[in-house]
């Protein structure tokens, strides 16, 4: 198991955001995290990315273990080689072109030669269908294009685990299907994807596993087709009501 989350607890003030979340994900899996807003989906991704300190439990990604409170700089540095993240609002760097967004980390963090970084970036952008937008600035990209550039940017460091926060939120159904196929392609070489989503059709179609969260706890998990076709928990039922 490349991702092991064990008894993760996190409170902000008196509000408990995560109350003992445990799950694991294997190589090549596409795990969909579902739940109503405020269920703690995004917070789980942020704790795994070491953007959010937590109070209890452990996060283990590819052998790098995060513990409660502040973690050593080296630990965080090691962790970030394991995990990439695509934000819901993409957060492409406004001052850089699409291509420069993708090559920034390889050249500055991994110290790859610029020409190599660029040719790899072009391969990525091409595989995601946005190579022709390489010289565009983020403000000039459509939502879908920006998302694909953001995926390319995270993929450029080739992390074994890639997390995407609500990637389906701003896409129309046709685009969602396209995205699903792209993500499945990314899992083919053993990469693990953790994806938060509200879209049960998307989860049913593309996820290998689904985890349902409600008020900071996992209430149901398993095969998406089973869980989402025959929901047991009221939270899951509420989620499926359209």
């Amino acid at each position, binding site marked *: 198991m490349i991702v092991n989350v064990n008894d993760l607890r996190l409170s902000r003030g008196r509000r408990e955001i995560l109350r003992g979340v445990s799950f694991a994900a294997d190589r090549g899996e596409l795990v969909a995290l579902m739940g109503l807003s405020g269920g703690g989906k995004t917070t789980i991704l942020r704790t795994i990315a070491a953007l959010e300190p937590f109070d209890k439990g452990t996060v283990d990604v590819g052998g790098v273990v995060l513990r409660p409170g502040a973690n050593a700089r080296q630990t965080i540095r090691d962790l970030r*080689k394991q995990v990439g993240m695509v934000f819901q609002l993409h957060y492409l760097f*406004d001052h850089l072109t699409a291509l420069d967004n993708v090559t920034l980390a390889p050249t500055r963090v991994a110290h790859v030669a610029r020409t190599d970084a660029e040719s790899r970036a072009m391969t990525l952008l091409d595989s995601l269908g946005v190579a022709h937008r390489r010289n565009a600035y983020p403000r000039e990209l459509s939502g879908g294009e920006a998302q694909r550039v953001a995926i390319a940017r995270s993929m450029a460091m080739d992390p074994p685990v890639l997390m995407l926060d609500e990637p389906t939120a701003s896409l129309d159904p046709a685009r969602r299907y396209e995205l699903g196929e792209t993500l499945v392609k990314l899992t083919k070489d053993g990469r693990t994807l953790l994806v938060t989503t509200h879209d049960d059709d998307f989860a049913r179609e593309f996820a290998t596993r689904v985890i349902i969260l409600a008020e900071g706890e996992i209430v149901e998990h398993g095969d998406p087709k089973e869980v989402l076709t025959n929901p047991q928990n009221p939270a899951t039922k509420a989620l499926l009501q359209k």
Partner: protein
Amino acid sequence: MYISHDVRLTAVALFFCILNFAFCIQAQPVLRWGGDAEGGAPFVEADPSNPSVVRGFDVEVAEQMAKGLGRKAQFVQVAFASIDQSVARGDFDIGMSGVEDTPPRRAMLSTTIPYYEFHEVLTVRREDASRFPDFSKLRGRKVGTLSATIAYERLLRAERENGIVVVSYDDDVHPYEDLREGRLDAVLLDNIIAARSVRRVPGLTILPTNFQTGHYIGVLAKENTALRDRINDILRARMRDGTLERIYRKWNIWSDDEAAFIQSSLDGAAAAPPRAGEGAGATQKQQASKFALIARYIPSLLEASVITIALSCASMVLAIFIGILIASGRVYASGFSRVILTAYVEIVRGTPVLLQLFVLYYGLSSVIRLPAFLAALLGLGLNYAAYESEIYRGALEAVPRGQLEAARTLGLTEMQVFSLVRGPQAFRLALAPMTNDFVALLKDSSLVSVITVVELTKQTQIFATNIGSWVVPGLLCAALYLILSLPLARLAGYLETKWRSDSE
């Protein structure tokens, strides 16, 4: 009915009151005379025992004039450099605290006959008395004086002829202090100023040579010739009856030269003003010399604008550099250093830059003696750093947190997040307000004339005093500032629209 009766009564009472008041003013006519009490004794100074009253030989001469006119003398405080302009626009009847007799003044204003003769003398440190007998031995050395005076003109000539370095001051106290400190090697000024200063500042001595003779006069508005003629009659009468001699003796400024001057004035030999420009004469000649004078000042104006632009650019570079340090310190550092930086910004923003320049140049001179240009650069740079830091701090904090988190998840170190993502994005936000600040700095750089740096505005003032008019120098000066600042203002506007459309 009662009410309206009341109102009528009040109105009548008020009318009489006003009439009475007007009558009172009519009954006690005053002679409003303007001078600068900052000039100090023996000219005009605030009475130490009652600072609302002025005293000095100029005060007493003015009182004699008022008495002769059957009026009461009333003092009007005015900055020394503004006496000419102020009297011309009617702020007072006559201006007279050590006002020098020069051709431009005679051309632009109604001037009285000279009432006092002075000499331009060199003051040096006592140990240098034999080393610097005259200008020829002062080659390459700094000689200070009050700007826009006969002494200043004389020094400019010595600069051309003897290669001295002229340092101009806005007042006549600091040159002597700087002479003692070693910032200057000599000071050329009126003998009574020199005499007063060597009494105040120890270790100085006045050389006997008279480099130029000049006269103090009263100045009136051009059209005010009737009053001028009456005052001239009064002055002659007071010379004749020994009143002026009594006043000058009282203030310890009487000498044999003065006796000879008064005698020659009474004999009718009207003292000619010294040739500050190319002398007075026929109107045509005056006109021609005026153009020649303007032409002569244009290179120095251009030179002064080079000083202005160099000083502004260097100060801005310093301000940007320190501003970035302060801003990043306030955003990233914690606790003590943050408090220190915040205090710096608040103190610098909360006190006048003029005061800061004074403290840097004069206040610190016992600890560290900064050259004037360096002090000006530091003063403006450190002052603007506080403003810049606030712009950068705002800009740094305006970069969305998500941008920083995205950079962190890619594995960038905090330093790289700052230098590759946060800094560049904040810079774009800061660029337009920074350009605006630079335009403001360009104009604020005119303040450094208080610490002897002659930049564009100061040179213009000197120019204006010498040709006796602000019109041409003012227009030229404004044009030069606009040439320097308009491209920057355009750039600021362009960047503002560009970045704004970018972020949409």
